C-alpha cells in the first residue's frame, strides 16, 4: 500500500468577504438614501471615515492536515471554529482561498440530513432523487433499495408523500440513503443532532461498520464527545480557523472541554445586550442557578431543592417552541435533559412579546457530589433549533455536613438519588412451598 495520505491539506485557508456580502444585501434605493443622508449630515467628514470597509474574515487559516486511508477522524471545536467550512471545502462545495487539498479517493458527504428531499414526492421517489443528488447511480440505488428501506423502517409509507411523514421518519429515511453511499472518504457533519436516541444509536453503529468493517476513511464533526470517543481513532481540535490539537480522542477531548468558556461561568451565565444567542426574535438573556428563595447561587447542597432559571426575551408574538435544559458531567456525559413539555400539562401555545421566565425545579437527593454543566436549548423538537448553548455554566453539587456526607459523598455514578427501598421477608419454607 502507498504511504501517501488519502487526504492531504497544505496551508489551506478560506476567506469570506464580510463587507462584500453586505454590499450584495443593499438595494440601490438604500445605497442612494445612505449616500444622501451622509451628504446632508453636518458631521459629514467624521461619519465618512467611520464607515467600515470590506472586512475580511478568515474562516480557516494555515490548515495542514494529513489523513491516512482507513482513519476515522473526529473534528471538534466550538461554534464558528471552522469545522463546517473545512467539510464544505473537502466536499468541493466551496473552494479554498489559498493553499490546496489533495484527495486520493471518491468523496461522499452528508452535511445535512435530507437536503434535496422534495415534500411532494413519495418516499420511494425521494430515495432515487436523493441518491442521485448524493452521486449514486441508478443501478446502485436499485441494488441497495431494499437495504435502504429496511434500515429506515418506513416500509409502510413508501408510497406516501414525504410531507405527510413525521420529522423523525424523514430523518430516518434521509440518513438511510446517505448511509448506503459507497465512497472511499465519508464526510459527515453533525447529523446525529436529530432523531430519537434509538435511531442515533443505529446511525452510530452504521458509521462504525463503514469505518471498521469496510476500511473506509471517515471524517466526522460532532459536539457529542462520547460519539467522538467511541467512533474515532483520532481527533482534531479547531479553534478560530486553525488546528490547535491533533491526537487520540482521549488526549484531545479534555483540551476541548477545558477551552470551553463555561469554565469561566459559575452558577450563571448572563449575556450582555447585543451578545445574546438569538434567532427569529427569541433571545436568551440569562440562565441561572437559583435556590428556593430565587437567590442566585454558585453551588448547591445535595439536600436542597434548587431551580434553573431561564430568562428569554421575545421580540414578537410567536408560536411557542419548547425549552429544554441538559445537565452534563465533566466528561461530557449527558446526565439528563428535561423540557417544559415533559409533563402532561397544558403548555402555552404562543409567546407574547416581552420577557419570559422559565423555572425548572430539580429535587434534592438526586445529584452526586461533583461538578455539573448546564446547557439550554430552545426550539421545535426534531425540526428547528433557535438557541443552543451546550455548556452555559457550571456548578458544584456538594454533600453537606453531618451523617449524610458519609452515606452520600463520593458515591460512584453521575447521579446519586435517594430512592425508596422496600423489603418483604419470606421464610425459606414458604418460598419453596409454592
Amino acid at each position: 500500500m502507498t504511504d501517501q495520505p488519502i487526504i492531504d491539506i497544505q496551508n489551506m485557508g478560506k476567506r469570506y468577504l464580510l463587507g462584500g456580502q453586505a454590499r450584495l444585501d443593499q438595494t440601490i434605493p438604500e445605497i442612494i438614501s445612505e449616500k444622501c443622508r451622509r451628504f446632508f449630515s453636518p458631521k459629514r467628514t467624521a461619519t465618512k471615515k467611520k464607515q467600515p470597509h470590506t472586512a475580511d474574515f478568515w474562516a480557516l487559516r494555515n490548515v495542514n492536515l494529513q489523513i491516512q486511508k482507513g482513519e476515522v477522524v473526529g473534528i471538534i471545536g466550538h461554534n464558528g471554529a471552522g469545522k463546517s467550512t473545512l467539510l464544505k471545502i473537502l466536499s468541493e462545495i466551496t473552494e479554498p482561498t489559498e493553499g490546496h487539498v489533495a484527495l486520493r479517493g471518491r468523496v461522499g458527504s452528508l452535511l445535512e440530513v435530507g437536503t434535496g428531499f422534495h415534500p411532494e414526492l413519495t418516499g420511494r421517489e425521494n430515495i432515487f432523487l436523493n441518491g442521485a443528488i448524493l452521486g449514486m447511480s441508478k443501478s446502485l440505488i436499485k441494488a441497495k433499495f431494499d437495504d435502504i428501506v429496511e434500515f429506515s423502517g418506513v416500509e409502510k409509507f413508501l408510497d406516501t408523500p414525504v410531507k405527510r411523514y413525521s420529522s423523525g421518519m424523514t430523518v430516518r429515511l434521509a440518513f438511510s440513503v446517505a448511509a448506503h453511499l459507497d465512497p472511499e472518504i465519508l464526510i459527515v457533519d453533525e447529523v446525529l443532532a436529530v432523531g430519537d436516541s434509538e435511531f442515533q444509536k443505529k446511525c452510530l453503529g452504521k458509521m462504525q461498520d463503514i469505518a471498521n468493517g469496510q476500511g473506509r476513511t471517515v471524517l466526522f464533526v460532532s459536539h457529542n464527545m462520547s460519539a467522538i470517543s467511541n467512533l474515532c481513532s483520532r481527533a482534531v481540535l479547531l479553534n478560530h480557523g486553525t488546528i490547535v490539537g491533533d491526537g487520540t480522542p482521549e488526549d484531545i477531548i479534555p483540551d476541548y472541554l477545558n477551552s470551553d468558556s463555561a469554565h469561566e461561568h459559575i452558577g450563571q451565565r448572563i449575556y450582555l445586550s447585543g451578545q445574546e444567542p438569538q434567532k427569529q426574535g427569541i433571545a436568551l438573556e440569562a440562565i441561572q442557578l437559583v435556590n428556593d428563595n430565587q437567590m442566585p447561587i454558585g453551588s448547591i447542597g445535595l439536600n436542597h431543592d434548587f431551580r434553573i432559571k431561564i430568562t428569554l426575551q421575545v421580540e414578537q408574538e410567536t408560536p411557542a417552541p419548547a425549552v429544554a435544559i441538559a445537565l452534563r458531567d465533566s466528561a461530557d456525559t449527558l446526565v439528563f435533559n428535561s423540557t417544559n413539555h415533559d409533563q402532561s400539562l397544558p403548555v402555552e401555545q404562543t409567546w407574547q412579546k416581552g420577557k419570559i421566565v422559565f423555572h425548572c425545579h430539580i429535587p434534592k437527593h438526586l445529584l452526586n457530589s461533583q461538578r455539573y454543566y448546564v446547557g439550554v436549548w430552545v426550539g421545535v423538537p426534531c425540526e428547528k433549533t433557535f438557541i443552543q448553548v451546550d455548556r452555559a455554566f457550571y456548578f458544584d453539587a456538594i454533600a453537606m455536613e453531618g451523617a449524610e456526607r458519609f452515606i452520600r459523598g463520593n458515591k460512584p455514578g453521575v447521579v446519586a438519588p435517594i430512592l425508596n427501598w422496600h423489603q418483604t421477608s419470606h421464610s425459606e419454607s414458604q418460598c419453596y412451598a409454592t
Partner: protein
Amino acid sequence: MSAITTTSLTKEAVSPTPTKILKASKGWQPIEFAKLFQYRELLWFLALRDIQVRYKQTLLGAFWAVIQPLALMIVLTAVRYIMGRGQAISPVFIFAAILPWTFFSSTVIGSTNSLVSNAHMLRKIYFPRLILPLASVGSPLLDYAISFGVLVLMMLWYQVTLTWSLLFLPVLIFSTIIAALGVGVLLSALTVSYRDFRYVVTLLIQLWFFATPVIYSLHELPVHYQWIMWLNPMGGIIEGFRSVILGNPIDWIAWAVSTQVATLCLLLGLIFFTRVEKRFADIV
C-alpha cells in the same frame, strides 16, 4: 527524467482513483462537459422531480399544460380579429407559435430561478451547478408534447394538411432549447448575486413576446427590416415552427441566423457561468 516517469507510473498503479486537487481557481475556467455527462442521471432525476411535482395536488393535473396555451390562443385570435378589422386569422396560425413560445418562456423563467430556488442544495451538496438550469428544460418540454396533441387535433379539424416538413420539428425544438438556455444559464448565474434578475426575466419575457412573430408573421413585416427579426434568437425559430406546421416553405436563413445567435448566447452564458459557479455556495 526517467526516474520521475517511473514514480508517477507506480503511483498510478497503486491508487485506482486519480488524485483530485482542490485549490482556488482564478479567471476563466474550461466547461466540464465530462462532469456533466457523469452526472446525467441527476439531470434526469431533477427534471423528473419537476415533472412529478408540477401538477401534484391539482384537480386538472396535466390538463393545465393544454388550458394555458388554449386560453392564450383564444384571446390572441380575438385580438388579431379586432385589429384586423374583421379579417379572421386561423387559430392554428396562432397556436402553432404559442406552443414553442410557451416552451421557450417557461424554460427561461425556470432556469433563471433554478439556482436560487435550490439554494439549500448549492450550500450542502456538490454537483455540477449547470445541472440545475439544464434540468429546467424537462417539464416545459413535456407540456409542449402534451399540448402538441391538441395542436394535431386542431390541424385535423381545420383541415391543415400534414406535410413531410413536420420531420424538422425535433430540429426546431432543439434550437428552442439552445435559445432558452442561452438566456436562462446567464440569468441564473446573475440571479445568484443579484435577485433583481428575477424581475428582469419576467419583464424581459413580456417584452420579448411582442418582439417575436407569435401573433404576426415575419413576412408581414417590411422586407427591409425582416433581418432584424433574424437577430432575435426566437424570431426565425418561431417562424420555422409555424412554417413546418402550416406546410409553408421554411425560411432557412431566418432559422439559421436565429439559431446562430442563440448558440452564441449559450456559449457566452456557459463561459460566464463556469467562471462564477465556484462562488455560488458562498453568496447564494
